[in-house]
């Protein structure tokens, strides 16, 4: 969506009373505009909200719409999108004594693209992210970044590659101070620095914690702080290792939506690669999912094309195995596996609807039913 269309999108969200979505979109638009006057108005609104806890949604809406009006009057050029941000070809990393081999892996990422990296523990997700972040080297293949010629050395390059490890480092001092320190190093000085940091804190829900120390934040807000710090750095590629770990379901949703929204920014789109064990959540927001099995990659898109005909179902029921067998015996090639908590049913001759119909007709109580044919989850349950 081009920048000029976004105010309309915000108005629609407000009209449908999707206030959170509307407001986060508004904040993204204002951040993209890099207009300090708008920054000040947003910050003033936040202060007003703090000082008037009894305010009505109409008051708030009115203030927001005034900003949307102002936003409409701005004419911002769209940034040119690069062909690719990162391109790796047959990348291989071998650990000594044959302990583990990653790859060969080939994929590329473009601005605005979000790639999910999934796989069981010990299959190379973190290793791949660290290679991409230039933390460790690789043995074979090619790894290219679109702007690599601009950098004098790896350190210089890493200032533009942001890698957030699974266990983020501890930060000392107030979160606002740390964010300002970060922004200053990226050339954002003076008043611009102060306003942008406030905006980032508002965008990531940290505004009310602005005077707290990092150690006083909960896990979810620590991750948001990390994201705020990351986006102040204006990265072109963001590499996240298990960002959803230790987050509750609600926090996971917020973080994922934030990531998707920021990746798809009209003005400044970035490429995001994130690893996670939260398969369904990642699949919901990712443009592509890269599944790693024993270090070997499987791009879900390709796999889906190869095995599109086979259906995989997760079923949780109180019925016993014989009852399920009896009900599904009419399906010729059905396979039923029980992993201790759930049944995994697969068949190439029918689809999810066909299986569900048989179960209902056969009066099998269904507590949980999910079609995982298009999900990487099937790689975990098959073989």
């Amino acid at each position, binding site marked *: 969506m081009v920048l000029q269309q976004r105010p309309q999108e915000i108005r629609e969200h407000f009209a449908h009373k999707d206030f959170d979505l509307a407001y986060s979109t508004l904040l993204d638009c204002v951040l993209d505009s890099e207009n300090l006057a708008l920054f000040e108005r947003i910050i003033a609104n936040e202060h007003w909200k703090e000082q008037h806890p009894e305010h009505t949604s109409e008051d708030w809406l009115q203030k927001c719409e005034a900003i949307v009006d102002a936003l409409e009057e701005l004419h911002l050029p769209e940034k040119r999108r690069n062909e690719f941000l990162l391109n790796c070809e047959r990348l291989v990393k071998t650990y000594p004594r044959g302990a583990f081999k990653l790859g060969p892996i080939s994929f590329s990422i473009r601005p605005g693209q979000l790639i999910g990296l999934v796989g069981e523990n010990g299959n190379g997700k973190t290793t791949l992210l660290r290679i991409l972040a230039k*933390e460790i080297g690789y043995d074979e293949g090619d790894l290219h970044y679109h702007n690599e010629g601009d950098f004098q050395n790896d350190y210089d390059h890493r200032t533009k590659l942001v890698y957030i490890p699974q266990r983020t480092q501890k930060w000392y001092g107030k979160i606002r101070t740390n964010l300002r320190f*970060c922004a*200053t*190093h990226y050339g954002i000085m003076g*008043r611009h620095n102060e306003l942008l940091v406030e905006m980032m804190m508002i965008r990531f829900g940290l505004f009310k914690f602005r005077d707290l120390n990092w150690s006083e934040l909960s896990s979810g807000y620590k991750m948001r702080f990390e994201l705020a710090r990351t986006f102040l750095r204006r990265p072109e590629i963001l590499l996240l290792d298990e960002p959803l770990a230790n987050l509750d379901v609600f926090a996971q949703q917020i973080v994922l939506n934030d990531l998707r929204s920021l990746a798809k920014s009209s003005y400044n789109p970035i490429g995001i690669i994130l690893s996670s064990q939260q398969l369904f959540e990642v699949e919901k927001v990712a443009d592509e999912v890269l599944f790693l099995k024993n270090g070997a990659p499987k791009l879900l898109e390709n796999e889906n094309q190869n095995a599109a005909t086979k259906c995989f179902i997760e079923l949780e029921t109180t019925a016993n195995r014989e009852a399920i067998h009896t009900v599904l015996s009419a399906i010729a090639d059905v396979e039923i596996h029980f992993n201790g908590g759930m049944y995994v049913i697969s068949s190439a001759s029918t689809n999810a609807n066909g299986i569900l119909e048989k179960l209902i007709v056969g009066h099998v109580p269904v507590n949980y039913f999910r079609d995982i044919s298009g999900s990487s989850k099937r790689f975990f349950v098959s073989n």
Partner: protein
Amino acid sequence: MNTYKKFSTYLLTHQPLLWHSMAIQLTLVAVLLNILFYGMGFLRMNLFTLKNSYNIENLFFNETFSLFWIISGIIILIIWGAYFYRNNAAKNFYPISRWYFHKLAVLLFIPALIYFMVPFSFFRGVTHQTQQIISKKTLFDLEYNYVHARPFLICQTADYNCVNRKFPQNYKNIDYWSSNDYYKEYYNQKNQLLNVYDHLENAKAEPINGGLYAYRVESRIETTIKNGDTCYNSRNYFVNALTLDALTDFHQFHVKNFSNGEFLNNIQYTSTRFFGDYDYEEFYFLKDSILTKIHNWIDNEPSKILETLNDFKNLIDQFEVYNTLQPDKNYEYLRANDFIVHRRVTKQVSNGGSYYLEGDVDDLQTVNEKMRGFSQSVAFDDLQNLIKNANNAYHAPFFYDQFLKYLFRFLALAGVLLLLYFEWGSILAFVISIPVAGAFAILGTLLFALAPRSDSFALLIIVLFGAFFLVMAYLALKGRLKPMVGNIAITLSYFMFPLWVLIILGYIQVAFSYYDYGTCDAYGVTVYPFEFNAEPVSTILLYAPFVLFFISLFAVKKVLAKKE
């Protein structure tokens, strides 16, 4: 507080390095420390200390002030280091300029320099308080009277010096010590021996502290003296007895340079310096001009002697110097004996005691009992300390003599720091810097070998440093330096390099200057070339802040190297 916050925010959003390095806060703390120590010096100094301290220049280092200084420095460094190391820009891969580390070094150099000025501030406090206690004019009067009255003070103890001579015969009877015979013997052969030392052109004496001669001997003479197992400490006092040969050498040196051939004119001076109390203030009165005046008084104006004694008594009373001096009786005794005081000579025995060799002991004892004498042990010490310390406070020899040397070392360290930073960001510079360092190590080793003194431990350190850098250079040039080994080597070099440079600097100074850094005692010669004339424990304490300074500063670099 609000202003501070605004200022801090301004720095944070405009000058992140200045904000993060806390250079301004560190500078303020360093300035405050200087003010605090100035106050300590001012309060610490008083008349009692002036009279009882052996040397006020050592107050700072001998008392707990230096400990407080060092501990405060270490605490500041630890707090700062922890703060700086956390979340620093390099650690987080924030963009930093090519000169980031250099700027950082300069920013930290300023507060560090101010911090190292603390001993100076302390001494300035001491000086200013001393000025309150005794003005320059009073000090001059005191010195003048002391010098002129001293020959006529009849003392209780054996150390009679000039008074024990028969006036007006000028030094006809020389003082006897166990080595007296040797003087005579070599005196008789002086012309012959003088020829031996004709080449000693560099020998010279420099007046310090109001005209008093302290002998600073050039390295060639020093070498000669060293053959007698003797060395000077930093104050140019002899601290150990010479062997016969060395003693002879030194006498001849005096004969040639200071006595115009009149060896006996200075024999008292020399022998006492050699064997007894080496506190030079006691010998003011031996200056030729004063002796002439004294002889004139004895011959023509004896009443001047009484006048001088009275003035002297008034002055020492003013400064509460304990004494039982009775100028009238003292003068009467001298006059009754035609100003001839019997000699009293002692001989030291092996257990450190002494006994009388000759002299009219009974007469003197009687006089002393009648007059209760002038207690040397209390009054002379107090007076000499008072004059010496006040002079030191006024002329600040600590600052000019010690502190500048000490500051020089700090500057050398800072130079090393900057030098090491140049390798950052350039593998080529790094590869070059290692063999250069190795070459310097070899050069240092050679210098050490050529230096007049040797110390096997320090030599071993230098050789090991040289070997270390050479091995690193070889491995680096051959491409065999694994990253981990390289990191270890770099880390090690951070510890070793400044220490090594200090040792080299120390030996260069030993080789080319008047100063030495050794002490000489019953255990032989001990050399501390890389420290501030301090004992080994003090050396470690003094070196600790430097090490911490380097660790803190290089920590960033180390992390950077590791990640790259």
